[in-house]
């Protein structure tokens, strides 16, 4: 019986295909018309049946289309990918319907009914999002309370730092051997000086801007950048310490790493704000931002160490043996043989650590630094702009998403590249 049916389907597939496509299009059409234009084709049916009708029709259509091999390229592609069996067809329909249903309200909220003109709350009259809010507050979200006419200093500093970062790629081949030296030691120092003197000022005729005024997304970048360049050497020392064969050094490194990995960052930040002042000499004042950067560096150094240890471990033992057989000592072996190879391997791992770091920096909001989350909280409670929390958070989420997604893709690609190179 079933066999004859299948045979029939094979010989008359053309008709089955037409019927299936017809049913499937009807079901999609029904959902699209209803969700986009509020036209209800099934108004004459009882409610509950009208709800499930497109699902049933579409399911029947997909069932008719399904065949092992039809000879038509598109149909085969569909059958292979979204229509392999009844369960898959059902899920396919559910996903398509969910997308179609969710698209109109979110699109109209975000784009069609949204407002971006004007520069006050009154400009927002529609039912959609009020992007005017984001537009008006844009500079605050980006630069915090930094004086408006000095924003060029932040921009210049970032451009310089990024430019210096790419500088290594243009070095002459004869200088390439100093590349690691440049990135690990010289670059952090130059970057630190650039950011310190350009953004905070106080020298070369630039006006002093105290760190309390820094904020917004630029503060996220500053904090994560400094933490990265400081936690890298720390992590390297700890990773070497953890793999050392001197027991005391190993225990101290393991203890350090496991301690910081075991506590949440928020308690570390609390520690930086209430415990650090206690631990320092009484007349020694340390800026809040500096304290936070030190705390995050100590914290992130432990994670960095684990990433670097992964790279060290993945080097074959032969490298160590070969270096030792040439009569190299511990430091010579590590500086000239082990680390140059291992550091290349740990770039993806470091990238992931950095990603986690960027995602963690909004937390500095809890100790009172007006990072982008802090600026959002400030903007949302501003009496002139009440009720636009949604827009602000979506804006911040989009920015972070783009940064983090790009970074995760980059590290993923690197990982694949090194996997094949080895």
């Amino acid at each position, binding site marked *: 019986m079933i066999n004859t049916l299948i045979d029939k389907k094979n010989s008359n597939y053309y008709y089955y295909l037409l019927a299936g496509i017809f049913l499937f299009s009807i079901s999609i059409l029904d959902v699209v018309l209803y969700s986009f234009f509020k036209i209800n084709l099934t108004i004459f049916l009882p409610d509950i049946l009208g709800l499930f009708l497109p699902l049933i029709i579409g399911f029947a259509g997909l069932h008719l289309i399904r065949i092992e091999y039809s000879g038509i390229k598109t149909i085969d592609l569909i059958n292979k*990918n*979204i229509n*392999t069996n009844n369960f*898959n067809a059902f*899920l*396919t329909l559910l*996903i*398509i319907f969910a997308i179609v249903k969710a698209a109109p309200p979110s699109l109209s909220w975000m784009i069609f009914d949204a407002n971006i003109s004007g520069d006050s709350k009154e400009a927002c009259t529609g039912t959609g999002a009020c992007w005017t809010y984001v537009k008006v507050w844009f500079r605050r979200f980006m630069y915090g309370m930094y004086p408006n006419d000095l924003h060029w200093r932040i921009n210049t500093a970032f451009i310089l730092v990024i430019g210096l970062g790419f500088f290594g790629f243009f070095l002459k081949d004869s200088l390439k051997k100093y590349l690691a030296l440049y990135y690990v030691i010289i670059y952090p120092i130059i970057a630190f000086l650039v950011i310190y003197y350009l953004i905070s000022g106080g020298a070369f005729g630039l006006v002093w801007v105290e760190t309390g005024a820094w904020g917004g997304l630029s503060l996220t970048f500053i904090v994560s950048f400094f933490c990265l360049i400081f936690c890298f050497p720390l992590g390297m020392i700890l990773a070497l310490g953890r793999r050392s064969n*001197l*027991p*005391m*050094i190993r225990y*101290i490194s393991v203890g350090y790493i*496991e*301690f910081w*990995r*075991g*506590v*949440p*960052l*928020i*308690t*570390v930040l*609390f*520690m930086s704000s*209430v*415990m650090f*002042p*206690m*631990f*320092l*000499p*009484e007349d020694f004042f340390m800026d809040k931002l500096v304290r936070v950067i030190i705390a995050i560096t100590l914290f992130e150094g432990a994670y960095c160490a684990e990433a670097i240890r992964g790279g060290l471990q993945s080097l074959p033992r032969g490298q160590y043996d070969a270096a030792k057989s040439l009569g190299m000592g511990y430091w010579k072996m590590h500086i000239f043989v082990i680390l140059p190879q291992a550091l290349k391997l740990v770039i993806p791992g470091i990238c992931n650590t950095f990603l986690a770091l*960027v*995602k*963690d*920096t*909004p*937390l500095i*909001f*809890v100790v009172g630094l007006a990072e982008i*989350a802090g600026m*959002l*909280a400030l903007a*949302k409670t501003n009496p002139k702009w009440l009720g636009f*929390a*949604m827009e602000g*958070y*979506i804006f*911040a*989420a989009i920015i*972070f*998403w783009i940064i*983090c*997604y790009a970074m*995760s893709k980059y590290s993923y690609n690197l990982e694949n590249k090194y996997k094949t190179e080895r």
Partner: protein
Amino acid sequence: MNNKIKRYIPQILTLLFVIGLLGFFTFNAQVNMDNRGIDFGFGFLNQESSFDVQFSLIEYSGSHSYARAYLVGLLNTLLVSFISIIFCTILGVIIGVSRLSSNFLIRNSAAWYVEFFRNIPLLLQIFFWYYAALRALPLPEKAAPWFGVTYMTIKGYYIPSFIWNNFDIFLYSILAVIISIFFISSYAKKLRETSGKQIPLFFISLGLLIVLPAISFLIGGVSLDFEIPVLKKLSLTSYTYEGGIGLPPELIALVLALSLYTSTFIAECVRAGIQGVSKGQKEAAASVGLTSNQILKLVIMPQALRIIIPPTTNQYLNLTKNSSLAAAIAYPDLVLVFAGTALMQTGKAIEIVSITMLTYLSISLAIAALMNWYNKKIEIKEK
């Protein structure tokens, strides 16, 4: 001799450096505390706390001690972690399996779900749910019931509470089920190994799990009542629900954000685990004559779980640590109650922050130790 010196000198120097650093900090702390008139000690834990906590699992009021406040915070942290772990595991497994689906749409929606929720900072997600999404919920008097008896309002989620009679008898019956399942399964294993016979263990356990508690209801005098939340007028315009359990919006926002965020990582662990089992294993099992259920249960799952469980536990640990972000939306967890309010009142910065950190550290170390033990147990024993 030369070698010995080479080995000892760096170690001694490092040790001296660490001890010196710690000594420097202790000395400074001593001086600073003397100057500010604070004395070091944990006596404050017994003092009356005189602050209130909005949401607590155990009885607590301002007249209780700081130690009790610590316990309230710790329990709240564990509560939110526990609920989130359950949700994120369910979600994570579904998404992880979906990522390997043969269906193009399912595979890609799962992939986009992971990319979407993984790449937005958790704090922003918590803020989004708490300040934006949950604020759009209706007021108590306008809320339509969900499933007839629960109410989702801007003031929280109100669900019926259970009122048990003779709860201990019910508990004993559950205990009896667990013990008998343990004995039956060990018997079944013995039977399988000695004579090759198999008994339907799963159905026997399921039957026991239904029958014994049912008996406790019928004979043991156990009964269960529901207390359904009822709308109550507080003042002219303000309403609230009374009776039942009210879950505060902070808890809901936190659970939502934590489980959505962590589920992406768990999904990746699950996917890696299933992909990590080589195809040959499945084919070999099939060629030995195992049914597809047996292949999944006896061949694929044990190997996949070996890969899945360690990183997943790590994610649970991360979730527990991340639950400390609760402090940002004023959910009374350990950090907010103890490292926030209690610290403000007593000024015992060093003691309180170290207790908080040590608490998290001991949770982490305990789970890590458990994990090591488990890894030792399941590792492939090569001959």
